[in-house]
């Protein structure tokens, strides 16, 4: 187990290096001038541009720029973005907010999704099954944008039961609605994944054996069938957590959440390479760690999968 973890951690180094270089090169390769738009509808003066290029090492060739950047990153300095703000500090604040949002969304989709899927899977073809199928179909077919704006209007503006937007503190109460909206789509997928897997496992030999030796239905389903059915669900949730961290731009916009998605989006738009690479590096690392965690969870869920 320990050896496995160390090997996986070592494998991360080339992945992180490669990913950051690719991102760096891609942001660099985007057409357009990073100073465009900084001066309204008019072009910036030559002097302003020169000072700007000098400050952000934009005159160097790409490998040297990247080298200078990585040298700082290794020392824990993610640099300054084009607004003159410390990227590491800003990312820290933003990942806290986004992480909170993503975890809450994961909680929503995990709890409701697995419960709904289990209820549907136990009695395939029953009323609960049809209800879950129809409601998940409904959730899957509506874009997050619509769910967000509609729920914000009714729950927030009209009835005043939820917070309309999220303030700087991003309290749990304020994040309830956005995290539900964010998790709603995956919730539907998780319900369906759980249902299909559970329904299939319930027909498996070991479940028949468990029943035959006189285990209660709760133990049969809960401990044996459901646990084995959760492997694809956990894989999906691991992937989803990464996606939620970086891709919540739409939800962040609707609820004015100062998170990572909007930061990356704005960075790309402004050709703010340092900001984008910094944010994405953290994202890549988070992705890798969550994936490792998922792989370790397999062993817990199904002892046949061993890492030794």
């Amino acid at each position: 187990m320990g050896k496995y973890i160390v090997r996986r951690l070592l494998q991360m180094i080339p992945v992180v290096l490669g990913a950051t270089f690719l991102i760096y090169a891609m942001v660099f390769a985007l057409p357009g001038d990073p100073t465009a738009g900084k001066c309204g509808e008019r072009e910036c003066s030559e002097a302003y541009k020169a000072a700007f290029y000098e400050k952000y090492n934009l005159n160097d060739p790409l490998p040297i720029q990247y080298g200078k950047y990585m040298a700082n990153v290794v020392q824990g300095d993610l640099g300054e973005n084009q607004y003159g703000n410390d990227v590491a500090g800003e990312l820290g604040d933003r990942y806290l907010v986004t992480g909170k949002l993503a975890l809450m969304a994961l909680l929503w989709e995990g709890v409701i999704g697995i419960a709904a899927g289990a209820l549907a899977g136990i009695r395939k073809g029953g009323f609960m099954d049809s209800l879950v199928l129809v409601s998940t179909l409904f959730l899957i077919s509506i874009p997050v944008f619509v769910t967000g704006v509609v729920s914000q209007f009714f729950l927030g503006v009209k009835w005043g039961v939820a917070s309309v937007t999220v303030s700087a503190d991003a309290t749990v109460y304020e994040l309830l609605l956005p995290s539900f909206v964010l998790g709603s789509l995956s919730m539907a997928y998780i319900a369906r994944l759980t249902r299909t897997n559970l329904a299939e496992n319930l027909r498996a030999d070991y479940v028949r054996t468990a029943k035959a030796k006189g285990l209660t239905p709760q133990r049969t389903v809960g401990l044996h069938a459901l646990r084995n059915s959760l492997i694809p669900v956990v894989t999906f949730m691991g992937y989803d957590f990464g996606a939620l961290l970086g891709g919540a731009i739409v939800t962040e916009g609707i609820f004015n959440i100062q998170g990572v998605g909007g930061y990356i989006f704005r960075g790309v738009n402004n050709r703010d390479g340092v900001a984008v690479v910094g944010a994405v590096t953290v994202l890549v690392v988070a992705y890798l760690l969550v994936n490792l965690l998922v792989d370790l969870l397999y062993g817990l869920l199904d002892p046949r999968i061993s890492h030794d």
Partner: protein
Amino acid sequence: MRGTTRKVAVAAVSAVALLAAGCGGGDGDSSDSAAAGAEGGEITIRGCNPENTLVAGNTAETCGGDVLNVLISTLVHYDPESAEPSNDIAESIETDDNQNFTVKIKQGYMFHDGTEVKAKNFVDAWNYTAFGPNGQEGSYFMSVIEGAEEVGAEDSTTEEMSGLAVVDDYTFTIKTTEKVSNLPIRLGYTAFAPQPDSFFEDPEAFGKNPVGAGPYKFDSWTENQAIVVSKFADYAGEFGGNVDQITFRIFQDSGAAYSEVVAGNLDLTDDIPTSALIDNIYQSDLPDRNAAKATSYYGYIGINPEVDKDLSNPDVRRAISMAIDRQQIVDTVYNGTYTPATGWVSPVVDGYQADVCGESCVFDPEAAKAMLEEAGGFPGDKLTLSYNADSDHKAWTEATCNSIKNTLEIDCVATPLVDFSTFLTKLSDREMKGLFRSAWVMDYPSIENYLGPIYGKGAGSNYFDYDSDEFNSLLSQAAGAEDLEEANSLYQQAEQVLAQDFPTIPLWYGESKAGWSERVDNVVITPFGRPDLRVLTVSE
């Protein structure tokens, strides 16, 4: 009060104070326009993240500009309703020849750090802004001052413009490179604000904690979250604020801010989302709490005939102009809120003349076809109308292209470019073929601001490589005119030259909207398109 300012300004002949203080009252007479509503109170309004730190000479966009506008005072203040200039810090701005100006400033104006505003604060600030190695955005505005070119060079070692000189604590002189009759009007722009001595010690730190001489002082700035300003007790000018504290809460999405205003959690937004504009939904969402006002926004189509030879004949451009059904596009795309343009200058500025474009800007399919035929037809096989796709331009560009296509039977395609950076780069590299979207918002309320910076030879926004001797000579004559009236009439003649040469196709004049909560009153949208935060009151 407003009326008198204009008369004085227009009648002012050289050697007379160009901008005698029209609004009565001296020091301590706070805000003349706050007839209704009480003073005091705290409000939270929509803000956006400034592009740079809050330094007046380095801010050319509205996010930072809105905050700076209440933090700073300039020599001249623009009226919130009409944008007419009247003296603020300036006691008088005098000139004999429109090239040598003597500025006397009022005594008693204080910076928020307790130091008094003196002549050297202006001169030092402007020199700093103009100095090339400082790389300030506002350096463009300094280019009228003698010596700016030398100081503004990238590797300049001269730090002081020869055209500026401090006479005594409350007097300084400006010498311009050539005659500039409307210089006093320009001096109200943010870039011309004075800076306290503390600024020059550490401009970087200053920008995060700015100090000005305006009615509000800076309290705090939490990156991407909020900027807070509060009333400055020692403000000595006439244009003070009413509300005690203003919090700019930063939103990235106009829809989120709008929802908060409707829910009553935010007091003011000046950015109504497109979804709320459909059928004027915002007017029923916020009954009696919304306003719309014609602003200086002017949309037009640019063409560079050097790059795209198909469009080098002015009559072809004129025919295209006559093929655009402006009213219909305005009605369908902008819910009738914009106004079809009748010339190259916005109606809100001093010196505007109506209907310069005449029939060439009126939709007339028959005449358009005839005009194109007479001009020998359109030589190319396809026309593009390029726009930057990161902004709301898809709808109108497609409607405009359809209008051209249906009328002239030229294949016109609205072509998106990824974003504004890409768009501007392609323009400055002179690679943009066909038609391209352009727009202008005034820096200062003068007809000149719509002509010189856009069509002058080598001007920063002259992406059309327009170069007309007649136009340029009229501009320089106007700059040296005896008085404002004469200057304006020369500028108007210059605009008529544009009507002959048709370098660009005028489209429409814009409108700004704002919506507010039940807590605030007296919301005035300025011709600059921004709500005036000084006259705003709390209604409780």
